[in-house]
């Protein structure tokens, strides 16, 4: 498909770091995010949320709220169409609309504190706020369960009295909070452990953590009297917002136009809908546009964090460092509805290593918490905390450098996976080697300081994308895709287009089109956009090059086979074709009317050939023995990205992922009180890293190109968040001699571990 791309040719613009096309808007305050849209006659909505962790909803009385002047409508769960109980889509990301509509708005039961139970549309924000206080909900409070181990106990309160665990044969006779069991098994575990010289088995717990995007969810909806409707929504995929919203409200896709608002961070958490169906239904009930902005408290209480977990991992090695067997039991909090990323975790946990005998069992467990949503490499960082901690202990036991232990067992092209297909790419060993060669890796440390290493795997994604390319009347170029730009992808799309067409970056402008203006694009997630959408941009550019050659052939009155495209110009293939001056885009565009009209193409793809991402990292930390506070002194993160298209944004992804990992490791956690209410639903008490907590993060870009992408792209967004938690735990062990088995490793926990060790 890449007939025009000579992969051995030196790149002119790919790999540089130009200013992004949407940059000026974003530094001048002009860019419009989800909450920045308004329309004439617009109403404001507020959502009433359950104060209880678990309660039957006996009745909801909205009369007083409706009577308040300025209130135009009140809706509850009953106003939404119901859906069949059915899991649809691939198992790893299966969706059940019966659950989804109940998460959007509770029906029979409120299943977590913050669960939406009713929504108001009113003429002002203040009236809407006043109105939700007038809604009377009669709750029957039920016993609740928060912890994942408590939730699978025999006497646990059940969220769904008829939930029978999926994935178990024969099916259990009794219901439980275990929604699903997943298992991947290879080889003979017993024989494997019997052949090991050292075996370590250890249990770990991790806290639920939030994606922590700075922009709360927000949207503006306008329902048309003829059913044709519009949404302005901040999401990681406006086509997916369209799909979910239309499905939940029983609409045709063609009747819902979704405009992509700029997105203020998502990290996986904006791949689902919360407020869009509510705003659109309120608009339908009132005939006015309706705007919803979530508060930060609501974001914490009612949008997906990623799972907390309880895990046991057992690994055996030989003295020479060969890992001979590995076993994991991973219990993940799904939140109030099934769908934790535990299946990913069972696949990713041992994926970086070639191990003959492995088993990973995953349990997807519901409890009275908000439904989990994707968060950067969903699942993989959680299991990696356990696996990479145990590997560190084993490296110490056999007296081997922890990087060398990983290098010895690293997968490469041809290595098996536990889920079937073989690995088809190198790149992991290279991330380890670059750190072994790093000048800081051998540098001596001071008192109370420690160095830790860890590695991580993520699948990276491909999938469905569409792009269009138009040559404007003046010969400049517009490319459009339907992939939301969360971190500079407009720039990387323009770079790949410019490289393919052989024109300067500034001649190509790159936009994100609404759902009515371009074909389907799946979400910006799974580290897929630069790979898959990039691939289709290149494909579209190659198609337009064929069209430009045809136009040049018409202008010269020669056969198209006699025209080549080189460095942005149509040229005769050789002297036999004729003596013609090369034709620029401008020259060809000027004659478009007589050669066939406007010059443009749209291309679509379901991109395969994606290659996984590997990251290996080391960090140096210092522990204050009097307070347990951990200070990060140095952090070096190597990641194989295949090829960096926009170098600085690739570095930025690695730096950003590492810092989210540092927060996950040291501070971030959902804290519940005994009533099942979240105690820290704000940025003051749920503390994400701030600038003064951190050193510079050194991103080491490793480029082992993916031969199945025209520029070698693998993906960059996610693998970087997999290693930091274990790397920090391993560094804390070296500094203190204390093995931390629970996240976050906050000062009280580290201090308690130090005190326990010192007796």
């Amino acid at each position, binding site marked *: 498909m890449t007939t025009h791309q000579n992969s051995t040719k030196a790149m002119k613009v790919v790999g540089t*770091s130009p*200013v*992004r096309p*949407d*940059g*000026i808007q*974003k*530094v*001048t*305050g*002009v*860019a*419009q*995010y989800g*909450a*920045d849209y*308004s329309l004439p006659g617009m109403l404001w909505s507020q959502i009433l949320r359950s104060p209880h962790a678990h309660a039957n909803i006996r009745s909801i009385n909205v009369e007083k709220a409706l009577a308040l002047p300025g209130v135009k409508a009140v809706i509850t769960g009953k106003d939404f169409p119901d859906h069949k109980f059915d899991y649809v889509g691939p198992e790893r990301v299966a969706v059940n609309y019966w659950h989804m509509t109940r998460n959007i708005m509770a029906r029979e039961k409120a299943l977590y504190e913050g669960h939406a139970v009713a929504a108001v549309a009113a003429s002002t*924000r*203040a009236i809407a706020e006043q109105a939700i206080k007038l809604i009377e909900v009669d709750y029957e409070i039920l016993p609740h369960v928060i912890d994942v181990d408590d939730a699978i106990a025999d006497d646990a309160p059940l969220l769904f009295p008829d939930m029978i665990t999926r994935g178990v044969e024969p099916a259990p006779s009794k219901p439980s909070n275990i929604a699903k069991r997943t298992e991947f098994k290879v080889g003979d575990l017993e024989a494997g452990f019997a052949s090991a010289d050292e075996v370590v088995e250890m249990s770990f717990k991790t806290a639920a953590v939030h*994606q*922590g*995007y*700075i*922009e*709360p969810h927000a949207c503006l909806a306008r329902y048309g009297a003829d059913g044709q409707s519009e949404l302005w929504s901040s999401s990681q995929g406006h086509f997916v917002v369209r799909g979910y919203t239309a499905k939940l409200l029983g609409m045709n896709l063609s009747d819902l136009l979704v405009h992509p608002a*700029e*997105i*203020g*961070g*998502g*990290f996986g958490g904006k791949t689902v809908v919360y407020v869009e169906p509510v705003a659109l239904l309120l608009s339908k009930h009132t005939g006015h546009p309706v705007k919803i*902005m979530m*508060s*930060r408290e609501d974001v914490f209480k009612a949008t997906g964090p990623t799972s907390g977990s309880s895990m046991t991992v057992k690994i055996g090695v030989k003295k020479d460092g060969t890992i001979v067997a590995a076993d994991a039991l991973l219990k993940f909090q799904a939140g109030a509805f099934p769908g934790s990323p535990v299946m990913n975790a069972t696949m990713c946990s041992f994926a970086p290593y070639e191990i003959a005998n492995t088993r990973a069992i995953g349990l997807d467990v519901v409890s009275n918490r908000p439904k989990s949503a994707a968060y950067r490499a969903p699942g993989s960082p959680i299991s990696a905390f356990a696996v990479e901690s145990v590997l560190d202990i084993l490296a110490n036991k056999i007296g081997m450098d922890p990087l060398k232990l990983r290098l010895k067992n690293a997968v490469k092209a041809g290595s098996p996976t536990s889920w079937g297909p073989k690995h088809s790419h190198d790149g992991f060993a290279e991330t380890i080697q670059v750190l072994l060669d790093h000048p800081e890796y051998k540098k001596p440390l001071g008192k109370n300081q420690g160095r830790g290493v860890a590695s991580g795997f993520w699948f990276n994604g491909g999938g469905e994308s569409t792009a269009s390319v138009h040559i404007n009347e003046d010969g400049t170029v517009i490319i459009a895709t339907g992939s939301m730009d*969360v*971190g*500079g992808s407009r720039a990387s799309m323009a770079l790949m287009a410019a490289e393919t067409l052989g024109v300067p970056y500034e001649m190509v402008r790159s936009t994100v089109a609404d759902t009515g203006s371009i074909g389907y694009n799946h979400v910006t997630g799974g580290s897929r956009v630069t790979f898959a959408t990039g691939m289709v941009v290149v494909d579209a550019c190659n198609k337009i090059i064929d069209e430009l050659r045809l136009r040049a052939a018409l202008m010269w009155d020669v056969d198209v086979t006699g025209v080549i495209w080189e460095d942005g110009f149509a040229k005769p293939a050789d002297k036999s074709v004729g003596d013609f001056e090369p034709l620029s885009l401008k020259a060809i565009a000027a004659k478009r009317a007589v050669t066939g009209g406007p010059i443009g193409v749209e291309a679509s793809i379901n991109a395969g050939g994606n290659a996984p991402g590997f990251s290996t990292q080391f960090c140096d930390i210092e522990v204050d023995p009097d307070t347990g506070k951990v200070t990060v002194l140095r952090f070096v993160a190597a990641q194989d990205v295949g090829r960096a298209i*926009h170098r*600085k*944004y690739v*570095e*930025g*992804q690695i*730096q*950003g*992922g590492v*810092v*989210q990992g540092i927060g996950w490791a040291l501070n971030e956690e959902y804290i519940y009180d005994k009533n099942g209410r979240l105690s820290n639903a*704000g*940025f*003051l008490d749920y503390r*994400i*890293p*701030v*600038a*003064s*907590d*951190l050193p*510079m*993060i050194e991103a080491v870009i490793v480029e082992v190109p993916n031969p199945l992408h025209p520029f070698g792209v693998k993906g960059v967004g996610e693998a970087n968040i997999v290693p930091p938690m274990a790397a920090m735990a391993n560094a804390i062990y070296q500094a203190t001699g204390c093995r931390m088995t629970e996240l976050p490793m906050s000062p009280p926990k580290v201090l308690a571990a130090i005190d326990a060790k010192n007796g």
Partner: protein
Amino acid sequence: MSKHHVSTVINGDPVEFLCETQQTLLNVLRDDLNMTGTKEGCGTGDCGACSVTIDGRMVCSCLVLGVEAQGKSIQTVEGMANGTELHVLQRKFLEHAALQCGICTPGFLIAARALLERNPDPSEEEVRFWLAGNLCRCTGYNKIIEAVLDAAREMRGA
């Protein structure tokens, strides 16, 4: 309840508005004056996305009442560029790729300008501590710090 009449100056221009007693300056700017460049990330003064200056002093506009703008001079991100000429900080943020999603950027720009007005030659540590009230979840802060230090160098003529 009658509204309050407030006379103020925003980005050098005289502005009058009516607001409710409990309305924050952030809501007035965004909902009533259509100045949506100032962002709401938390509404509780914890994230810095709504940073503005009032008579040169940096504040979270979500913690200031609209009525408090009476007789004051307010600067927002919309007033930072001089026509089409970007402020050095705006330019450096772009050159250094110091924004990914960009939602925190207006707040960081306001905060960084306030720093450089007080300290034209800050150390990396001083930049990190001054900006500790502004949350960014995308970048890990590296490139923001680099952009601010680079802007300071250029503004000093160093």
